[in-house]
């Protein structure tokens, strides 16, 4: 059986075709890259014979650009995702690009201002992240810092990059060097990729400033001219596909980087530090926390799915509400919902965040809110994005008894809750 990349000859009833064997998703179809470069599918049962003319031998990689000494060291930790993968012309498969050489081949500009050290920590689409990965990443960051990195870049699939940013904020408070999560909305194998600009901006920020922030570095707009460093605890992916999908939530970017130009940073962002008293307290990888969005026509059984979980984050409507009022014949279920919330809150921790995306929880305004507080739902008056609230709840439950976790949830620990609801852009 030929392997992807093998030079083959296939013979159908009518004719023979030369080409390269390509992977096929459909077992009934054989895909061949013809000499024109086009891939075409042939029905397997119409092919009389496939002959391998030449086995595929990967072209040896060349070390192209020697890295110069004496430049700042930037550690790049790869976790997979769109940014460091591309489709192989020869085999048609997706190949990962992780070594410093691979990166320099793709982004030769990087070598001009920094010495790269790069490593594959995990290779995944980011929706597959688990708490265990957060712990591994945090340990890698500490190790890289110990090994003298001036800054650390984590390449990451974009879907849950903001969850990871929040998780690292609890695991690695007060980072002594910048730790920047960088992703791409367009893959690196296309001319229009945003990976290059996002990566270059992160390198520019690390090499041209002495700030030490934990943040997300992505496109400012859909144009290719500037990137922003977004706060780790207050950022969300707000669009499925746009380059500017990441936006600050009830806050503003920490810095703006014009590519090859100036860096504008907020006045009060912290500077690099040579000492770091880490207090690394990992996630308990067995902790189970669920998230349940409120909607109309709910059933108590939806809530009871989370029986046995350590925590549940309700995505309340508006200021922090759930359908718990029985006022007519159609809303009898709501009483059952209230009871299910009560019972969950007794055995585990039930917190609330708003599904509106922006704004502060306030369960004092309407009576259903007050009833939720009485039912044991915590989180009144916090203004965390729900993703941060979820991470925080899990992290608290990893380290504190329930009662203490409940108390700490609404208190600001690492910058996740702000006392002032400033007037910010809503995106």
């Amino acid at each position, binding site marked *: 059986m030929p392997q992807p990349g093998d030079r083959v000859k296939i013979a159908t009833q*009518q*004719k023979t075709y030369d080409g390269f064997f*390509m992977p*096929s*998703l*459909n077992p009934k*179809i054989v*895909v061949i*890259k*013809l*000499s*024109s*470069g*086009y*891939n*075409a*599918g*042939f*029905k397997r049962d*119409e092919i009389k014979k496939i002959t391998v003319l030449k086995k595929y031998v990967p*072209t*040896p*990689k*060349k070390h*192209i650009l020697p890295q110069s000494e004496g430049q700042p060291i930037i550690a790049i930790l790869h976790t997979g995702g769109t940014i460091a993968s*591309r*489709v*192989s*012309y*020869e085999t*048609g498969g*997706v190949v990962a690009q992780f070594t410093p050489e691979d990166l320099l*081949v*793709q982004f030769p500009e990087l070598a001009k201002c920094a010495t790269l050290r790069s490593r594959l920590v995990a290779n995944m689409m980011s929706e597959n992240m688990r708490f265990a990965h957060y712990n591994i990443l945090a340990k890698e960051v500490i190790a890289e810092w110990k090994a003298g990195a001036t800054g650390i870049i984590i390449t990451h699939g974009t879907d849950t990059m903001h969850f990871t940013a929040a998780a690292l904020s609890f695991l690695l408070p007060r980072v002594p060097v910048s730790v920047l999560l960088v992703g791409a909305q*367009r893959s*690196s*194998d*296309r*001319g*229009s*990729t945003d990976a*290059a*600009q996002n990566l270059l901006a992160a390198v520019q920020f690390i090499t041209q400033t002495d700030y030490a922030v934990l943040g997300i570095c992505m496109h400012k707009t*859909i*144009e*290719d*001219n500037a990137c922003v460093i977004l706060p780790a605890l207050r950022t969300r992916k707000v669009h*499925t*596909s*746009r*380059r500017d999908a990441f936006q600050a939530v009830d806050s503003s970017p920490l810095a703006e980087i014009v590519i090859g130009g100036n860096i504008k940073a907020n006045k009060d962002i912290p500077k690099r530090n040579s000492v770091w008293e880490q207090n690394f307290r990992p996630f308990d990888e067995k902790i189970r926390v669920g998230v349940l969005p409120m909607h109309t026509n709910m059933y108590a059984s939806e809530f009871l799915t989370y029986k046995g979980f350590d925590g549940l984050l309700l995505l309340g409507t508006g200021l922090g509400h759930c359908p718990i009022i029985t006022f007519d014949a159609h809303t009898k279920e709501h009483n059952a919902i209230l009871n299910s919330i009560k019972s969950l809150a007794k055995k585990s921790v039930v917190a609330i965040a708003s599904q509106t995306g922006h704004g502060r929880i306030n369960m004092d305004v309407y009576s259903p809110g007050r009833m939720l507080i009485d039912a044991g739902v915590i989180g009144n008056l916090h203004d965390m994005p729900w993703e941060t609230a979820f991470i925080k709840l899990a992290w608290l439950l990893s380290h504190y008894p329930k009662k203490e976790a409940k108390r700490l949830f609404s208190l600001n620990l690492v910058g996740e809750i702000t006392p002032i609801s400033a007037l910010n852009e809503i995106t």
Partner: protein
Amino acid sequence: MDDMKKMDKALGLKVGLEIHQQLDTAKLFCSCPAVLRDDQPHFSVTRKLRAVAGEAGKVDIAAQVEQLRERTFIYEGYRDTTCLVELDEEPPHPLNPESLTIALQVAKLVNATIVSEIEVMRKTIVNGSVISGFQRTALIGIDGRIEGPFGTVTIPTIMLEEDAAKEISQEDNKVTYRLDRLGIPLIEIATGPDITDPQQAMDVAAYIGMLLRSTEKVKRGLGTIRQDLNVSITDGQRIEIKGAQDLKLLPLLVEYEALRQKNLLELSTTFKKILIGQITDTTSLFLSSASKVIADALHEGGIVLGIRIGKMRGYLGKELQPGRRLGTELSDYAKVHSGVGGLFHGDELPKYGITEEEVKRVREFLSCAADDNFILIVDEPMKVKRAMEAVVARLLALPNRVIKEVRRAHPDGTTSYMRPMPGSARLYPETDVRPISPHPEKVALPELWTEKAKRLQEIGLGSDLAQTIVSEGHADLLLDCIKKYQPVTSSFIAETIVSIPKILLRKYNITINPTAEDYHFLFAALAKGRITKDAIVDLFHTGLPVRNHIEEFSVLSEDELKTKIKELLVSMKDVPSKVVVGKIIGSLKLRADARRIMEILHKIQKV
């Protein structure tokens, strides 16, 4: 032409065609309408493109050239007809099914084998014309062939792909494109290099054009079909010529390209080795030059670089194509690779304000022997350097005979250098679109226009009229009307359909687009004698739809006619009687024929 044919044979002329035809459907990978616009765009987005490293760090040559230009691309769009897909801000939607059906029809029309699974590919293009850096393209059919009076021509591939954005302007390193054209479905039909004489190229292109239009689903008008040529002669190279808008130009383009290759081959035998001097800064010779081009450039901080070219005196002025010398060719390389305005060469100077004295000094400064030539380029230092390097590279390649490249067609049949021939290693799977299993057996074939026209001739239409009716898409309407509206004759119906819009344009300078319904109302009324033939032009001039106005032109009954005439006579009491008759006929002729009017007038006057 027969002599030409002989010459082409002797040269070993081989021509292949690549025909790109826009389809009249929605865009290929989104639901935006495929409309081309000239109005003010609603927004613009600035982007950069990168040359993407391919296998083992190799970057496509064409890609590299483009990246050297460090260009910024601006994309203009419209809120109502451009979406996130065309902005490269959203993955493509599934391939437009209607376009696929048309592509399958065309593949069947050229007797191709349709692939069992269609794989959409990404073709790397980094000149900015495709916002993503690649064009999406899919192979639909292979190994087709067409036959006609022109012989048998193979059709190795039929592709369905998206059109590129159109270039609006270019200044310095900024190129502006508009996204309206990006994503319009194109069918690409490539022929094998089977064409051996220039006229045949046109005949084959015309035949393929007819096949495409027979689907009735292709766009019409300037720029909606593009014919690229691949031309080579024995010992020459395959040269791709892009941008021929007019079919009639194809024979001349082929002829001139064969000539260019022949001339280059001759040069390569004359010059087995090119002797080139050092690139030298000659700015100091021109500090007080009267040449405006040079003075302006120096004023802006520019420099003049010069280079000696051994033994080539007289050769830079040698024509490769009518009006295009070797010097012009080198100048195009300089322009394309660095953006300079052009170059000066020894065979054209003194000229452009450069004096004989200056030429003499340049020759001395560059140590030119009597039969040596030289080239000067003036502009910003970086640009000049790059331009000179491009020129030197092209000169040094002269002994290598013809260089593979892409050239741009000019309306006079000549061509100019556009870019290096892209490497073939530049198609990657489009991982955002799932492969498609086509069902060609469910696709019905359209009737060919040639067959349709034959059918119309059989019912009595002249060959020209039949072809016009078919090419304007009125054949079905015509056949329908002929069947329904006897005794109106088929040729009258055909003439009317073809000529009415033309008459209105000529006579009143208005453009009308009558619908089938308009014609049905018209011919029905004519068949029943409810209106006169004389009224047709005025009826269409009064306004469309015809149904709203036809009453105004209905033929008058005896009584109505009498009343009208009486009214007119009263209103013309003071008009001399000689003139009255003519005036009455003039104002009523559309609603009754002159003979009837005269009869009634006589009756009234007798009373």
